[in-house]
Structure formats: C-alpha cells, structure tokens
C-alpha cells in the first residue's frame, strides 16, 4: 500500500495499478497520442519511468519495443544497460541498443570535458538526435518517452522563470511529426514520480534507483525539490501547476512544427538542421568529442557528485 498525498488517500496494489493505467489511458486519449495499431518505440534508460512506461504499454496491448542508448557514464551506464536488457529478456520484448562510443567515437563524460559544457547538454543533444534518427530509420510510428508530471512541472517552472516563450509554446505531451522529425509523446505526463516508483515496486520491476552521477545538483533537480517542498505544504500543487497549464495556457500559445519554418538537412548526417551548409549540432559535437582523449566519469563530476559517485560505485 502507498499513500498519495495529492489524492488524499492510501492505495492498495490493485488500485494503484488501476490509477496509473487509467491516467496513461487518459493521456493517450486526451492528446490523441497514438492508436491501437501504432508501432511504438519506447526510449528506455533503466530508470523507473521508462521501464514503467514500457511495462504499462505492453500491459495495455500496444506494440511497443525499446531503444536503449549507452552513454558511457561508467558503472552507472553498465548497470542501466544490464537492468534494461534483463527487463526486455524476461518479458520477451525487443530492445534496440545504440552505444555512443562504439557508433560515434565518444561518450558523455568525454563530450562534457571536450566541449567544456555541463554534461547534460551533450547528453540531451545526443539522446534527442539518436532517438529521432532510430525512430525514423527503424520505421516506428511514434517515440514514447518516460517524462512524468514532476519532469514536466520542473521544465515548466524553469521556462516560466526565464520567460522562455519559445519553449513554453512547444511544451506539450505530444510533439507532432514534421520536417524530418518523428512524432513524440509523453504518456506518463499525468503521473508523478512517486506513483511511478510505487508502480515498479508493486510490479517487482528492478530499476536503477541511483541518480545519474552527472545530474546530481543540476538545475532541473533544484526545480523539482522546490516543487516538492510546495507540494509537501499543499498536496496537489505540482499537478495543479502543470495540468492547469495544459488545460488553460497551452491552447492559447501552442505552436507546432507546421507553424515553424522548415529546417534544412545536415550535410554530414542528413538530420533536420538549421543549415544545409554546416554540420548539425550533433555532428559538431561528435567531431569535437571523438577527437578528445576518453575521460573517466569521475573527472567531470563536481565535488558533491564525486562524493556520491564514490560512495555508490567506489573510486575508479
């Protein structure tokens, strides 16, 4: 049994599962994410959200395969891959794997050092590029990601604090396909991290509990902590903030790929890009990072993250 403060109730295993499935079904229906015949590619990382999403979609009878990207973040990535592979094997599911170093000659710690930028920048860029590419290349109708309500509320808070109107107009549980980009959906957008973790525990799903060592202390985590503090005092605040945005603000400001200018194609990889004369951001990252000597993950962590990493995985 688990308590869900925003619902002011305790939920037994059966009703927790019922709640989660209904919320996912509602998200799929409300936002017309995909139909029963769709071939869905689920971006899986070994964390609770992506594995719970995959589990739920399969449980609901959808044709859902997984895509795992090996980011080269030391033991964290090794454990993530092991857990994801085991999840797929135990259920007879198809898992595609792309290893960043094997296919592109770099990993995230090395990219962070080579570009002198925060690791999450190279990570996000690489994942988006590979998810888009593989979804199209493998012929899937839609890419589903495990972004949950906490994730979306934190992003919304950040976009609002910065008044980043461009991002606010595109924050939605569905990104329409267009101009070479596949359709992308977030079926967990109505569910919190607490509910996803409870789903995994109740269903006996093994997942990576530890945070990515490169994400410790980042701004996104800070926004989540702030929202959770508000939710502790007034349960339901996060949901009200994000779902209220979807209901009342997003319809007024939402933009779609069709309403934006058509991009060019990268002269190097052919992916949608702002220019057909210079390589896209991912190709530029690949060029810079693959030329750099490999860097162990510990060397690009801040002091706090390094202590946590050593405590969890031991010193390299």
């Amino acid at each position, binding site marked *: *049994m*688990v*308590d869900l*403060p925003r619902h002011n109730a*305790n939920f037994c*295993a059966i009703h927790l599962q019922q709640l989660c499935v209904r919320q996912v079904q509602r998200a799929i229906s409300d936002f017309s994410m995909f139909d029963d015949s769709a071939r869905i590619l689920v971006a899986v*990382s070994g*964390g*609770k*959200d992506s594995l719970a999403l995959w589990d739920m979609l399969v449980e609901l009878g959808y044709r859902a395969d997984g895509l795992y990207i090996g980011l080269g973040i030391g033991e964290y990535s090794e454990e993530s891959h092991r857990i994801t592979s085991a999840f797929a094997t135990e259920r007879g599911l198809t898992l595609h794997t792309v290893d960043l170093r094997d296919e592109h000659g770099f990993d995230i710690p090395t990219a962070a050092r080579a570009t002198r930028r925060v690791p*999450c920048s190279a*990570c996000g860029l690489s994942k988006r590029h590979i998810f888009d590419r593989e979804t199209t290349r493998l012929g899937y109708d839609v890419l589903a990601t495990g972004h949950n309500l*906490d994730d979306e509320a934190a992003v919304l808070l950040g976009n609002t604090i910065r008044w980043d109107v461009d991002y606010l107009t595109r924050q939605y549980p569905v990104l329409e396909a267009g101009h070479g980009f596949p359709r992308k959906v977030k079926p967990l957008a109505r569910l*919190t*991290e*607490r509910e*996803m*973790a*409870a789903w995994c*525990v*109740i269903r006996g799903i093994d997942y990576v*509990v*530890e*945070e*990515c060592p*490169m*994400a*410790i202390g*980042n701004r*996104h*985590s800070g926004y*989540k*902590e702030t929202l*959770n*503090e508000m*939710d*502790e005092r007034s*349960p339901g605040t996060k949901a009200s903030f994000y779902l209220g945005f979807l209901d009342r603000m997003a319809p007024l400001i939402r933009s779609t790929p069709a309403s934006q200018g058509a991009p060019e194609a990268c002269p190097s990889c052919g992916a949608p890009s702002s220019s057909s004369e210079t390589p896209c951001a991912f190709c530029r990252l690949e060029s810079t990072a693959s030329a750099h000597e490999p860097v162990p993950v510990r060397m690009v962590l801040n002091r706090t993250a390094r*202590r*946590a990493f050593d*405590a*969890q995985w031991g010193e390299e």
Partner: protein
Amino acid sequence: MIVRLRQPRREVEMAGGRAAYAVLHDLGLSREGHLIIRNGTLVPSDTMLEDGDVVEIRPVISGG
C-alpha cells in the same frame, strides 16, 4: 530497526515504535520524494515502524 538509505547508500540504526513520516522528518527527507519499504513491502508513511524492522527509504526523484 535498520534504516537503509540511498544517495549515497548507507544504513542507520534507529529506535522503533515511531511512524514512518516521523522517521522521514528526523532524517530531513520529504514524504512526496520517498517511498517506505518495510521488510520488503511497500507501506504508507503513517505506518508504525517497530524494533526489528528493516526499512528501506527509497528516493523517487530522478534528476536526469
């Protein structure tokens, strides 16, 4: 009772006979951000924890 924590992994010994939410409060942890798993079973945070229990306090927030 044994209380197992994460990020980083560690164990602390605490006296039983207290509600889980009180233990969370003493450890400076939020209810919304943590699940309580007592002797392998997920329990709500108003559960009384007793001497001899093995309690995992599992963080649910992922930063990636």
